[in-house]
């Protein structure tokens, strides 16, 4: 663990990647390191342990994997490395298919708390599992800070579904660095919802490291007054015949801002790459603001890489159509917004995940509308 004195300085607004997220009001010393009162869940076939415990009980496994994906030159990852006490290890042995979802609940309810959290998921060859991680606060008044680092190791021919839902206090800071590495023929299906937090940055990086690996990343966010939501996603293709498909959709009410930055990187030699990313924002008010910075860096030629970004308001023609059918304008507007988000839900396989995500989006919409 790094010494506090040697930690990289916090980025200013000129630092690459931080141009749109103002940290000048962040005073790290104002937050007191606090334990995470997390519930880790369990499922037959998987090892689910407190990470601190796992350091002792599974030393080799943890030593090989912990910190292998998260870059410690990131100022918040470095601080997490120095400070984390609580976290979870999910380990699924080779060939084991875990039927039940593993649910991890991470509350953030103590005023002034700085929680440093760490998630390490390791799926060995051919394993299958579903991990849900939910961070939340009971109200929107708590001023706290969550710094989490998530590392997802998807082994050869393994399949991981990882669902991360965040609904912490709208006054809290969030800094989260989430990284996945998918090996030969591995599959990752990653869903993230961002509803809470006042300011911060959430990074979601996927590396298609083995030939034939695949990742689908689906993100949804909805912001209300005073919130600034920041997502930074990367899809790195470093092996041939890999596939990635990323879709983010956000709804922003009055006083909300969001920035999404996305990068598809194709390394030399990663021939046969098929990569897609899109970001769509719906602005519900003239006082909402959205930035989209998609990016492509392609160093192989036998590729198909596409991105799309769109920022728009509720379509007036659609609104007109619905009101002409007798809906009142508010209901019509809500229907259109739900339709906009439905495109995200449809990306998910039918089942409890899809239903819960859909319900969570509906609840959140009622809050901000």
């Amino acid at each position, binding site marked *: 663990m790094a010494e506090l004195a040697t930690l990289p300085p916090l980025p200013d607004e000129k630092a690459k990647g931080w141009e749109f997220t103002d940290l000048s009001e962040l005073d790290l010393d104002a937050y007191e390191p606090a334990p995470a009162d997390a519930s880790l869940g369990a499922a037959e076939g998987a090892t689910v342990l407190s990470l601190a415990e796992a350091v002792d009980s599974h030393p080799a496994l943890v030593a090989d994997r912990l910190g292998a994906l998260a870059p410690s030159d990131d100022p918040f990852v470095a601080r997490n490395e120095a400070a984390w006490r609580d976290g979870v290890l999910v380990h699924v042995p080779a060939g084991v298919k875990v039927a039940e979802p593993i649910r991890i609940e991470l509350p953030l309810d103590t005023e002034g708390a700085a929680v440093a959290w760490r998630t390490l998921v390791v799926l060995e060859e051919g394993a299958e599992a579903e991990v849900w991680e939910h961070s939340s606060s009971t109200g929107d008044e708590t001023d706290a800070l969550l710094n989490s680092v998530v590392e997802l190791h998807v082994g050869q021919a393994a399949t991981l579904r990882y669902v991360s839902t965040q609904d912490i206090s709208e006054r809290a800071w969030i800094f989260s660095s989430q990284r996945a590495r998918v090996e030969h023929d591995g599959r990752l299906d990653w869903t993230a919802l961002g509803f809470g937090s006042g300011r911060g940055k959430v990074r979601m990086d996927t590396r298609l490291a083995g030939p034939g690996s695949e990742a689908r990343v689906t993100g949804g966010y909805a912001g209300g007054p005073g919130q600034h939501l920041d997502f930074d996603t990367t899809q790195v293709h470093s092996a041939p015949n890999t596939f990635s498909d990323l879709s983010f959709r956000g709804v922003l009410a009055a006083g909300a801002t969001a920035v999404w930055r996305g990068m598809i990187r194709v390394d030399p030699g990663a021939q046969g790459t098929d990569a897609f990313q899109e970001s769509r924002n719906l*602005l519900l008010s003239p006082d909402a603001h*959205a*930035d989209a910075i998609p990016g492509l860096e*392609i160093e192989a030629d*036998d590729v198909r890489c596409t991105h*799309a*970004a*769109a920022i*728009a*308001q509720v379509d007036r023609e659609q609104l007109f159509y619905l009101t002409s059918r007798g809906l009142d304008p508010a209901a019509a507007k809500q229907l259109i917004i739900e339709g906009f988000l439905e495109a995200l839900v449809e990306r998910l396989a039918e089942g409890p995940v899809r239903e819960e995500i859909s319900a969570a989006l509906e609840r959140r919409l009622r809050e901000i509308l």
Partner: protein
Amino acid sequence: MATPEAVAEKRELAGINADYKEKFGFHDPESGYAYKAPKGLSREVVESISEYKDEPQWMRDFRLKALEHFESRPTPNWGGNLGQIDFEDIHYFVRASDKNSRDWSEVPDDIKNTFDRLGIPEAERKFLSGVGAQYESEVVYHQVNEKLEAQGVIFTDMDTALREHEDLVRQYWATVIPPNDNKLAALNSAVWSGGSFVYVPAGVKVEMPLQAYFRINTENMGQFERTLIIAEEGSDVHYIEGCTAPVYSTDSLHSAVVEIVAKPSSRVRYTTVQNWSQNVYNLVTKRAVAEEKATMEWVDCNLGSKLTMKYPSIYLLGPEAHGEILSIAFAGEGQHQDAGGKIIHAAPRTSSSIFSKSISKDGGRSTYRGLLEVADGASESRSKVVCDALLLDEDSRSDTYPTIRIGENDADVGHEATVSKIGDEQIFYLQSHGLDEEEASKMIVNGFIEPVTKELPMEYAVELNRLIELQMEGSIG
């Protein structure tokens, strides 16, 4: 089996290739220069340029202020690699002849030879319009046809404009691109020389495109032209800039500033075909403001240079203004084309589009870098950005960095980008119709850039297609 036409065309193309060096890669003797500043940049050099040109005090002060900006700013560390530019190893001013010629017969012979090889008289015959040809740092030949003058259009080199239309120049000078805008614009502001000045009075439509040819001809000599175009209310003008540079053994720097003011309901199109030799750093700042109901269009084709960093921008300042950027970049071996565009919607009901097409080959790197911003209050604005990139081999690289900033919900903005190689099925289809693979590839690439080339005057479109075909020779393996 190649068709006879294709064989003939191939021979013709090979012919173009063969005499490139002879045609463009020559040096004229440098002994005839009237004045050449020592290498390097200093207050003294800037003052001597200004003194030599006998400029008014305000321009001298402007240059010196700009020099301070240049010296106080770091070299940009984004985009391409600028680390190899030695700003002290450049001549900042070279003057080829003492006087500006309005009449062709007065142009010195060796300069005429250069223009002959560039085919300028031909272009002149075709367009019968004003031709401003920049040879070395100054426009030496300039002709505005009588019709233009009768319409009140001013089309002259910038040095002359400063002498003859000082008030007009001063009114608009650096109002679009201030000298502290960026390091290279500051450099240009300090040492600028030549470039074009265009003034189109209200309601005047200039029928023929105005053209200027630019050349760099002295080893280690920078070219810092400055162009200002003012289109008064309801006017219409198309300006064309095309460049061909000789081949040199050491790196050369081209850093222009182009400012355009499009008044209400005017329409300005600025077309560039850039084909600098592959040792030139082409670092250009181009910006236009479009007032109410004005239309501004940049058509930007980047084929040459070692590194180009150029992002023509449009500020839509008046309601219902419209901006368009069409961009082609071709990056071959050793080249990095870092191009794109910026559009800022700052008024209601403004609209814009950016179409970018890039091709990378033989280890070349093409980058689209753009900004699309809808500012607070620019309600009911619409924009569409489409970037397509073709990669012709596995050694080449393509980057896309668009930035979209929306501060207004009543806006409709879309961006799409695609990177791919030429589809096997496209090649197969054309081969099944009798083309060989190389011909098929050329055809596909020309089809790929066609949405932009169709906006060019025909001569330029043909030249561009040929240049790209040339670059494609032997590329299919």
